[in-house]
């Protein structure tokens, strides 16, 4: 509680005690009004002086209709008509309500602030002479060496040059299991080093570092207001004056009509009704609870590693009926790896891997790299570049290289002697194998397959591609490479399916692979062999196919696209809502998308949708509940059935309930 809130709490308590005490006293001892009135004015001023002052100031500044004005009129009116106790009670409960609201708002602010606590205050810069100074992260230049001690946050993105530690990334990803980080690996600002001391070479300025980007994003999120929020602020703009005029009419018209038809005017009774009407009408329940709900929803999502860029996206997300996934990097890890090797008889796995590694050594293709990586990890020997000669990439087929033998012929200086004996290694798809004369290979069904063929040549003759060559190369076997499916992808599809969401997978990969992935995950439909540009067209087609669902423009069915943000920025933009895999620090993804999943976990999408639906249903509950209670009480008040106590409930009670309901968004699981 802030000092201001504490002060208000004390005022409320003092005033409450005084009101209760005075009520009891005057219940036992009847006192004339000139004693009772001043006595009740004491708690009234204790609790309400600031409201009166504010109302007065606002009128002087030409701002008439606001809460303070309503409260002043209503309480002064009640006191003027002899209802001293009610007058004070209205003010008291109004203040208690305000206090309550300010605590609730403060609490959700704090929840967000805890998330914001990822921001590091200082960077320990290690200078060349070995001294360490504390500096403002803003002043640290790219390429500086910073020291991160155990328990400290990494202030700036960079690469570890020495030390190892387990890293708590939960503030960024919601993932509670710490990650091991060693020299040579990237670290992201905002993570906390738990066990070891690191020396990090910075790669970015502080303002471009992940932590700054995220803070900016979350802070800006409440600037993108949802339609419901805009509706409320418009509503309040017209509502308050209208209610004031209605109250005036309620006070003036019936007595005048009664006078005309010859009945007693009963001014006092109608004044009371008008005042009750005013108290009931206070719009604060709706005005405060709607933005609070959205804020809570966004806060709740961010604590789980889902960054939503604005309240408006919560609305869209709740109406998503189709989710389109990019395959690589979204449903799969995006990292190719050798999953199995199938050697022909009499040939070892290591042998094939060695030959394949030589064949693929000069290529940057992800598949080639996966073979190089697998070879490096499993073999003590490196690929000797000087033995490779004459690399031919055959587009759409594979690669063919000429490799000289000589590995075992150690020369006097310990250098390898390269002999004229050489071999040609062919690595590629089935088409390549057919082209070199290997016609009867049984194709492998799964994944991406690299077939390896070998041709030994004794002389330096050029026997590439088997053209003009009698001998058919020897078939060694094949290597299956696959992009590992994320462990949570299947659960993600299942959860989305149970929420009635249609899932579509788009990929540039071949149909066979796409089909296998789609089937194993349970994706509803898939489209394969798409070029990057085709994806936009596909998404447009899907949006059209889906239609509006028979609903108006605001609530129509929506389509979400989930990608890793690397080369699908146009698709992210074209979809109703773009969800990017944050990839822990990929700026491109954070820029392009409306929602960012910090830990790249597709299962978070159904959680995000759940949060958005819950938030919206809480918003709707609050709007409906508050307006329904108000309208009912307004009618009762106008008819003279509702008294001031009911009016207090309709105002403060509804507000407190609405605020309590709104804070439920923070606890969505």
């Amino acid at each position, binding site marked *: 509680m802030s000092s201001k809130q504490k002060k208000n709490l004390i005022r409320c308590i003092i005033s409450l005690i005084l009101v209760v005490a005075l009520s009891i006293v005057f219940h036992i001892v009847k006192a004339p009004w000139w004693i009772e009135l001043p006595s009740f004015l004491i708690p009234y001023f204790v609790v309400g002086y600031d409201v009166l002052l504010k109302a007065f100031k606002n009128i002087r*500044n030409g701002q008439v209709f606001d*809460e303070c004005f309503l409260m002043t009129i209503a309480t002064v009116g009640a006191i003027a008509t002899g209802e001293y106790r009610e007058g004070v009670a209205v003010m008291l409960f109004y203040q208690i309500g305000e206090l309550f609201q300010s605590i609730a708002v403060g609490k*959700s602010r704090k929840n967000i602030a805890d998330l914001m606590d990822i921001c590091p205050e200082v960077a320990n810069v290690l200078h060349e002479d070995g001294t360490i100074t504390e500096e403002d992260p803003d002043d640290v230049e790219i390429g500086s060496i910073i020291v991160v001690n155990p328990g400290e946050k990494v202030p700036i993105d960079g690469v570890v040059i020495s030390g190892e530690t387990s890293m708590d990334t939960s503030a960024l990803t919601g993932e509670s299991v710490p990650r091991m980080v060693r020299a040579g690996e990237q670290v992201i600002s905002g993570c906390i080093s738990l066990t070891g001391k690191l020396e990090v070479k910075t790669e970015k300025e502080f303002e471009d570092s992940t932590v700054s980007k995220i803070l900016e994003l979350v*802070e800006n999120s*409440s*600037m993108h207001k949802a339609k419901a929020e805009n509706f409320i*602020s418009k509503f309040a703009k017209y509502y308050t004056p209208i209610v004031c005029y209605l109250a005036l009419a309620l006070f003036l018209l019936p007595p005048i009509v009664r006078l005309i038809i010859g009945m007693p005017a009963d001014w006092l009774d109608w004044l009371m009704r008008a005042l009750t009407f005013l108290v009931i009408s206070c719009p604060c329940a709706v*005005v405060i609870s709607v933005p609070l709900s959205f804020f809570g929803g966004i806060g709740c999502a961010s604590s789980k590693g889902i960054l939503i860029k604005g309240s408006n996206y919560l609305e869209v997300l709740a109406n998503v009926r189709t989710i389109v996934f990019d395959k690589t990097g979204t449903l799969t890890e995006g990292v190719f790896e050798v999953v199995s090797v199938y050697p022909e008889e009499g040939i070892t796995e290591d042998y094939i891997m060695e030959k394949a590694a030589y064949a693929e050594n000069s290529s940057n293709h992800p598949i080639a790299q996966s073979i190089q990586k697998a070879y490096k990890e499993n073999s003590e020997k490196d690929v000797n570049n000087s033995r490779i000669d004459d690399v031919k990439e055959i587009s759409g087929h594979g690669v063919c290289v000429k490799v000289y033998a000589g590995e075992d012929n150690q020369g006097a200086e310990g250098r390898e002697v390269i002999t004229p004996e050489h071999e040609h290694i062919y690595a590629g798809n089935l088409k390549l194998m057919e082209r070199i004369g290997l016609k009867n290979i049984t194709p492998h069904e799964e994944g991406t397959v690299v077939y390896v063929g070998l041709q030994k040549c004794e002389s330096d003759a050029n026997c590439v591609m088997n053209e003009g060559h009698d001998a058919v190369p020897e078939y060694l076997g094949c290597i299956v490479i696959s992009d590992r499916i994320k462990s949570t992808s299947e659960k993600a599809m299942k959860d989305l399916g149970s929420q009635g969401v249609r899932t579509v997978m788009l990929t540039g990969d071949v149909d066979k692979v796409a089909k296998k992935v789609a089937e194993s995950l349970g994706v509803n439909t898939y489209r394969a062999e798409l070029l990057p540009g085709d994806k936009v067209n596909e998404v447009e087609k899907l949006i059209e196919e889906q239609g509006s669902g028979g609903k108006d423009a605001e609530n129509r069915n929506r389509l979400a696209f989930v990608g890793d943000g690397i080369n699908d920025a146009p698709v992210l933009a074209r979809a109703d809502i773009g969800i990017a895999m944050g990839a822990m620090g990929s700026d491109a993804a954070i820029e392009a998308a409306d929602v960012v999943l910090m830990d790249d976990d597709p299962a978070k999408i159904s959680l995000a949708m759940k949060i958005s639906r819950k938030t919206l249903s809480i918003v709707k509950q609050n709007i409906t509940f508050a307006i329904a209670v108000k309208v009912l009480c307004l009618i009762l008040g106008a008819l003279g059935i509702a008294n001031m106590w009911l009016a207090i409930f309709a105002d403060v009670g509804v507000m407190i309930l609405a605020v309590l309901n709104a804070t439920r968004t923070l606890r969505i699981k």
Partner: protein
Amino acid sequence: MKKTYKVEVDCAACAEKMQEAIKNTEGIKDATLSFMTLKCKVEFEDGVDADAVMQEARKNCKKIEDDMEIFL
């Protein structure tokens, strides 16, 4: 030019009114005030003195809502 200011205000409706007042201040192109983060993002017209403009904006806000503060 864009700048972000910390603000203090007690109610959502007042925040809304403050935002309007800041927006309507001369030299300010656009302003968004978030009641939840208590921050106000202000976009200035080209070539104005931001500090002077914000002083003016603060005065305008005080007029409509006395119980608020913009931390300049």
